[in-house]
């Protein structure tokens, strides 16, 4: 019960934050990608800058508390990222954003959401049937 409530709360915080930042607006995302408005780009970069010492401190003082995922480089790293970027620019949504958009009442994002699930499924099928790429990790989540 506690785990369920915490999960819900973190999701809520994340969705609320993304919405207030403007990440759920197709127009804002587009303006970010064509460098017409640097606000969200700077926000993202500053967030990374803040997270560098925060993560290092976390690992130093609370080792083992969180199993951090390492994401090895493999054949799909660049290509997968590249495909994702095209999809993000077209739909205005990364995986979390489609959900925020639906919550905001931008119901067309349900199509994006369905597409994300379908695309994830499709990759699993393609990997199983044709690619057999070694991603360098047994952990997918």
């Amino acid at each position, binding site marked *: 019960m506690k785990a369920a409530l915490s999960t819900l709360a*973190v999701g809520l915080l994340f969705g609320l934050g993304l919405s*207030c930042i403007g990440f759920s607006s197709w127009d804002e995302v587009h303006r970010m990608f*064509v460098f017409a408005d640097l606000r969200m780009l700077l926000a993202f970069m500053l967030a990374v800058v803040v997270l560098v010492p925060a993560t290092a401190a976390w690992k130093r003082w609370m080792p083992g508390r969180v199993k951090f*995922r390492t994401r090895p480089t493999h054949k799909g790293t660049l290509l997968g990222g590249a495909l994702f970027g095209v999809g*993000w620019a077209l739909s205005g949504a990364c995986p979390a954003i489609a*959900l925020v*958009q639906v919550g905001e009442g931008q119901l067309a994002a349900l199509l994006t959401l369905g597409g994300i*699930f*379908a695309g994830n499924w499709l990759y699993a099928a393609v990997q199983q049937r044709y690619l057999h790429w070694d991603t360098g990790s047994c952990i997918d989540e």
Partner: protein
Amino acid sequence: MHYLAFWQSALVLAAVPLVQWLWLRRSFGVSGRYTALVDELRSPRSAEDEPEMNEAELIAAMRAATAEAFGESVLEAPAAPDPAAPVVLRAADPAYMHWLFFGGIAAGGLVSALARGNWTPTFGLHSELFARMFGASPVLGPLVLVGGGVLVGFGTRMAGGCTSGHGLCGVSQFQRGSLLATLAFFGTGVVTSFALRGLL
């Protein structure tokens, strides 16, 4: 539309992974939850398949499996566990946890829209540019959204992460794969968006 300033936005973006680590003790990433849900559909599992184990239980189970595979003779006296790095098997989140997280994100969008007083659900995107680019035909917009979504789902699973896992967390841990993936998705996002300007 009034949005947070860049530095406020940055603090929000940085705070969310930290809160997740603190409350959920789980590495932060959204596309992985899609993967978990899809895998659950592709091959359902039961909780008994993957019990939670503490360090002593895990080592006992592994010793039993070792004896079964290689014979009792390979077993030595158990080593003293390292208290600084306890090894445990944590049961994977059940599917409903991922749905709860997703529901929370959507609820966050709802609360934000209500607070701004512009919660007007429509079957569209609240976007002027998208309408100007793709609004001419009633099928083009939906097609772009579905197609874009498929690329997002396919690409993030192939790359093993998205904006949160690779972009925020992986990059701030200087992981080479995350850096490459992030450069790739920002790069093609920029190129695609400039190409879309031609539709205006």
